[in-house]
């Protein structure tokens, strides 16, 4: 067992070294901590299939518990954004790469990431329907209103008016990028998909210090 853990450690260190070179925002130690954390999270998984990584449920739990996200659909989209190869599992590489943007991404990286999250069907555009879908729970519905969706529709129109610079009734990546650069607040225009400063701080503290101490 000791031999195995020693080998594990060696493996982890090598992996961390490689990954820290591929990913911008983590040094080797930090990468190592995150790998350990990843492994720790994997450990509970009963049917352990090596190389597969975190499944959707596990990942959503983390998003919900650690980063305080609540919107099921957005969490689903965040999982997809992490799961680059679309195999329904977040591998250790995808984990590190994803967290790099998630926790420490530059504005550019975050714009790209958010756009990916919001482009539900992955066709390179955020359409009216996608917006409606994402915003549909953003307003308190008033039963007195004739059309409870009216507010949402209006909100979609407002958003389009503000962000759709080429007036094609959908947001291209260019539209989105320009709008966010003009007004940073629009980065998470269609739902919270990034952690706030507090949870980032808490997570990093937990991951980098507590893990090391172990």
């Amino acid at each position, binding site marked *: 067992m000791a031999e195995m853990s020693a080998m594990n450690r060696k493996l982890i260190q090598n992996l961390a070294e490689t990954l820290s070179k591929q990913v911008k925002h983590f040094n080797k130690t930090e990468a190592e901590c995150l790998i350990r954390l990843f492994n720790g999270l994997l450990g509970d998984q009963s049917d352990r299939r090596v190389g597969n990584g975190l499944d959707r449920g596990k990942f959503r739990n983390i998003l919900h518990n650690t980063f305080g996200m609540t919107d099921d659909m957005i969490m689903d989209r965040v999982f997809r954004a992490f799961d680059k190869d679309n195999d329904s599992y977040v591998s250790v590489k995808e984990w590190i790469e994803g967290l790099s943007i998630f926790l420490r991404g530059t504005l550019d990286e975050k714009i790209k990431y958010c756009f990916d999250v919001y482009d539900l069907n992955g066709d390179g555009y955020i359409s009216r329907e996608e917006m409606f879908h994402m*915003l549909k*729970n*953003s*307003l*308190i519905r*008033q039963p007195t209103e004739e059309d409870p969706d009216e*507010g949402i529709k*209006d*909100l979609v129109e*407002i*958003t389009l*008016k*503000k962000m759709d610079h080429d007036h094609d009734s959908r947001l291209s990546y260019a539209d989105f990028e320009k709008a966010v650069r003009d*007004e940073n*607040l*629009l980065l*998470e*225009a*269609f*739902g*919270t998909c990034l952690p*706030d*400063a507090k949870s980032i701080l808490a997570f990093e503290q937990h991951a980098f210090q507590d893990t090391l101490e172990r």
Partner: protein
Amino acid sequence: MGVALTRAAQWTTASSGTGKLEITPVNESLLKEILEFVEQFSSRHPQEAKHVFKEPLQWTTSLEASDFKTEYDISGPTVKSQETDRDGHPMLQLTPPSISVHSFSQLSKIVQLATDKRLKEVRACLEANRDPVAKMLGPSFATVEGEDSSVLRLLEKVKEGDQAKETEIKVKLIILLQQLDTQLLSNSLKQISQEVRLSPAAVKNDVELLKSFCSEGENRVLTSVQYTSDYEFTNGCRTPPWRQVHGEICYLVINPCDTQPLHITCSTAGVFLNGGIRQEGEENAYDRTSDVYKDLVTLLKSKSPHFAENINKQDFAVQEEPPTQKVQHVELVDAEEQGQPQRSYEHQEKNVHEKARQQLVQNKPGGKKKLEPSLKWKNLGLASPYDEADDKKSKKNAVSEKFAETQEKMQKKADFSVSSLPGRQSSNKTKTPGGVGGADDFSESSSESEEDEEQPERRTESNTDLPSEYWQIQKLVKYLKGGNQTATVIALCSMRDFNLAQETCQLAIRDVGGLEVLINLLDTEEIKCKIGSLKILKEISRNSQIRRAIADLGGLQTMVKILDSPDKDLKYLAAETIANVAKFRRARRTVRQHGGIKRLVELLDCVPDSAALTEEQEKDVEVARCGALALWSCSKSTRNKEAIRKAGGIPLLARLLKSPHENMLIPVVGTLQECASERSYRIAIQTEGMIEDLVKNLNCDNHELQMHCASAIFKCAEDKRTRDLVRQCEGLQPLVTLLSQADNKQLLAATTGAIWKCSISMENVAKFQDYKALETLVGLLTDQPEEVLVNVVGALGEGAQKPANRATIRKCGGIQPLVNLLTGTNQALLVNVTKAVGACATELENMTIIDRLDGVRLLWSLLKNPNPDVQASAAWAICPCIENAKDSGEMVRSFVGGLELIVNLLKSTNKEVLASVCAAIAKIAKDEENLAVITDHGVVPMLAKLTNTTDDKLRRHLAEAIARCCMWGSNRVLFGEAGAVAPLVRYLKSKDSSVHQATAQALFQLSKDPNNCITMHDNGVVKLLLGMMGSTDEVLQEAAAGCVANIRRLALANEKARYG
């Protein structure tokens, strides 16, 4: 009474003489009034009632001896009163049918006796005595048309003084009678105004109508209606002109069906039967033979029963024709008017005549109604409900709105000129400030109190047709209220796309309750929402109403808390918003009371001067900049200045002062110059080496920054070390260079101010001389705002302390503009101008110019200025003028009342005024004639009164003045008697040597009077003077020695007298 009787009472014939009082309502009420007056007279004014009339009132009475009771001697038909006058004549005498009465008391009695005949008696009396007042008080009181001078005449008599008692009664009597007169007049006026005045047109109409009744057939009412004359004058009358003056319009002969032809006179007063005018010329035919009726129909009804009966039926027939009036008319006849059928006719007839007038009356409100819904309200949607229908139709776009605005302005003008109904105006008023439209249109709406009043009303008003922004903003605010973070952020971002600098949007946000939501968002945990909210608040808080609303909603407290946030964006946004909101005192206090000053000072802590900044450092700088902005706003309150200092703000500001960024420097220097009004800051600015940085920034090319730097130097340079520092840092030259920026008045005011204060040091004056500053400054003496002028003149005044500069000012032509400024009213300016002129006057050549421009007279008249600073400064300036002017004694005498004026200033309580005036008096007294005049004005006791002062400056000039004033007449003795000597001796103990010199001279002069010598000696002057005799000051030496010599001489003479 006289006026009322001649004017208001209606006499039968217009010509005077024995006329008869007609029986008309007016006359009746007149008589009743007079009756009441007479009846109550003896009880109300018993003394006056006994006054014996000059001539008795005599008339033909219907009273008989039997009517009289006690107090009367009845012998047969004649009656005499027991009451007699002083000569024994009875006060009342009745020899039927004539009666004569001598006093009001008897008149009262008659009235009481006459019972039911009393009205008749009064009438008879008045008819027989057309001017009763004249009879009562004598012919000089006869009622004369035009002026009434009876009281004056009486007063003259009072002056003559004889029979004072009787005259007094007469006065009272006439006053009472005049009161009655006015009362009568006003009453009859009321009646007259109630009466229907007929006009030619109305009569003509009547006649036409009556003519139409003269048809054949069974329902005819009249046989014929004819005028006596076919000729109609242009004024509509048909009577001869000499009758027209009596108001007669025309004469008619009407043949009713049932009676004799009626000869009728129509006059403006009414309609009546006359003596039967067929042709002109029968004089008595004009007289009235019947009652006066208000119109023809009424008369006819009373004279012809047939007419009265038939007119009603006729009514209907006639009324069919004008259908508009039918309804009203029928109704009247059918309903309540049955008893007086003629009324219905009247009504209709009146309608005909008054149609035009009524239309006018109706038009007024009608026309205004059309004006009322001003198009502006429509566009704002604030119109009152009854305008809504119209409003909805009006589709607005930019063009129509513009058009509407001009229309509205025009209409408003028209509106105000026409409208007279108060209700209408007030409704207009209340709406005006409610507009959310362009700020320029509603400048009055920015007054907060008015705005506050309007708020509740406006919210309840129907919201039709507000600008489209209003609706969109309202919708967004709804999303803010009912949305999650995502929706909120979208709504916030969308709201920022509106033109938040525009008042419409600013007020719309407030009016739809957006401010509450935005401020509530600041209390949440959502950073994005807070940022978005602050970004909006930051913009809209440029509006003063919004600022107050934010403060009212407690926004400042929340924002102060946000300053603690770790998020830098939040910090700087909050600080910037605070900077905008804290533009009024209450807000500044709130910031301080919630610990805002300390937190804002903490924001200043950053490293500003490293050349290459990282992104984070840049944010730190931005945070510090906004902190400085907020402190700048807050520093306008004195207690905040103190709080900033206590929070350690000064060293941080000093560090930021080294920043290379102008946008950082402006708020920092702004704060510093604001705080430099406090001494603690001035010292800190000097000791923390900030002068150097301020001087450095004078050289930048940002005018605002330069202005603040100059202004800071202006405030700090009161201190000598600071002035030296400015010079040592080579700050004087840039200041002079800045004088060329003459277009920027604020900058110019700050620069000239700095130059003025720096000029207080002579070293600096020398530097300015090198930089030729004075030449430029003289050029700035004309066409500048007062705040610049004050400083320019101040600088010249300081500069002119150097002789070379005095010549420079003259050579540059500065004397004339300076003298011209003496006529100004700004007191700060006057203080400086007088000082500058005074300084210039020390040069003979300058004095010649000042004299030529009559400058001394101007200075002298400034002694009348209520401000003691101006008085003192003018008096100081007068001193060199008197000294240097040619024929100054003559000049001073030429100022009428000038010497009295300056002597009276010795009553001032201001030490500086007293000192300056004493100095001036010392100069004036050099001229013997003038000294004589001021002695006459009592200068000696006034100066003596001042001697107890402890103020060395005043002591010195006072002693000078006393020394000079001793030279006339017995003034020396007078000073001694006034007790001026003993206090003067004490002056010698003063530490100020200039006091010693003046005092010694004064004592020397005073010692020429032996009594003064004794007083001096008693006060121990000799020892003090002996010390002074050893002084290096020769004048002092001489004066002291002279004084001691005089004392000694007296002592010797005394000894000689005693011991022989």
